[in-house]
């Protein structure tokens, strides 16, 4: 019950933080850190898959409504929400994930978390940016934007682990 309440609060805080603070952080007029993926990343291991999917959908919708990009964030977020269990399976330690632990640096270390975040964020940004451009004409310049933005998002998310979600 406590965990559910905490996740609902986190859902709201993450959207507001993204829209009110992070959307104003612009580097070169190109890149913006999308930290709202934190919500999907930090959901407990044993969350049923359909709940992850539905919350991915609502999260994407929430961001889309504020950013005036109907459907784009939703499509990208639902995709990573769907693939999250496979990513987790891919990165699982030899003995599997321990009960009562969460997908965080505190439990599984910096390297594990970095890999996990990289996979999710890069896939998300890739889908998002190409959907936004909706053409393959400037394939390389879009790819550059994907890579730079991913780097920025990943570092913000990893840093947040040291400052906000320490335990």
């Amino acid at each position: 019950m406590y965990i559910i309440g905490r996740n609902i609060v986190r859902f709201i805080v993450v959207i507001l933080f993204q829209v009110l603070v992070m959307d104003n952080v612009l580097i070169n007029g190109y890149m913006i850190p999308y930290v709202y993926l934190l919500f999907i990343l930090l959901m407990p291991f044993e969350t049923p898959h359909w709940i992850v999917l539905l919350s991915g959908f609502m999260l994407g919708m929430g961001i889309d409504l504020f950013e005036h990009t109907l459907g784009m964030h939703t499509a990208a977020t639902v995709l990573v929400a769907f693939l999250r269990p496979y990513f987790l399976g891919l990165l699982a330690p030899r003995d599997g994930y321990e009960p009562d632990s969460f997908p965080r640096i505190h439990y599984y270390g910096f390297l594990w978390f970095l890999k996990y975040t990289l996979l999710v964020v890069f896939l998300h940004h890739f889908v998002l940016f190409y959907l936004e451009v909706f053409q393959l004409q400037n394939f390389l310049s879009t790819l550059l934007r994907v890579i730079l933005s991913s780097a920025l998002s990943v570092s913000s998310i990893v840093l947040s682990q040291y400052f906000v979600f320490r335990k």
Partner: protein
Amino acid sequence: MRTLFRFIQKYSNFLLFLFLETVAVVFIVQDSSFQRSKIIGLNRQVSGYIYHKMNGAREYLSLRQTNEQLALENMELRNRLDRIGLYLDSAVVRSEFRDPYHYQYVPGRVVRNSVFKQYNYITLDRGKKQGVFKDMGVISDEGLVGIVLEASQNFATVIPVINRDFRLSVKMISNNYAGILQWEGDSPRFAVLNEIPFHVNIVEKDTIVTSGFSSIFPEGIQVGTIESFSLDKGNFFEIRVKLTTDFQHLFHVNIIRNYRQEEQLNLEAQTR
């Protein structure tokens, strides 16, 4: 039947994923400018309020810069006033003075702005109640900003130069050749001027202004300067224009109301 249920049960998550993804894609595909503005309208009341508050804070932080800008503009206006004084003294009464309003400027503030997307939009805190309607031009002290896309009672959305759907006829000041200004989605500081034929002599650093060929903007509003040009696309130049408006900090704008727009459009419709 039973196998169907088993199938659904087994792949329920995948089916849910497909369903949600389809919903999202339908949203994207159906998302024309028109629907976009309608759906945003639903959300505008809420997000408009939040952004209004947010902007209060941001505006406070840039007060100093705004002050400087205002002082500059004051000076400019005072200069113009002097020049008009000369006109009046020489007792030449021109028709513009008798028919006072051709263009009127409504001041407004930006409450929502984006610059890093492919389809950027701006929201202003002026709407129908303040006399702002669809298809009115928007400028800032620095130059061209965009065109009003949709207006509600107290808010209006603007499609700025830095939106890939934006098109406007502009001209070069040195030779009066007009072309189409549009944005290619790269940097918010640069746009592209197309449809200038290859035989035109182009001067680097030439100033680009509005042509006045639409009923939206008066002639001669500053747009930008020519940064570079090339003849890549056959018979037409592709001219890179450095925009004078810095969309990354845009707060105060003027919305242009053309009192003769209707008359002009009616006449043009009759002629066709």
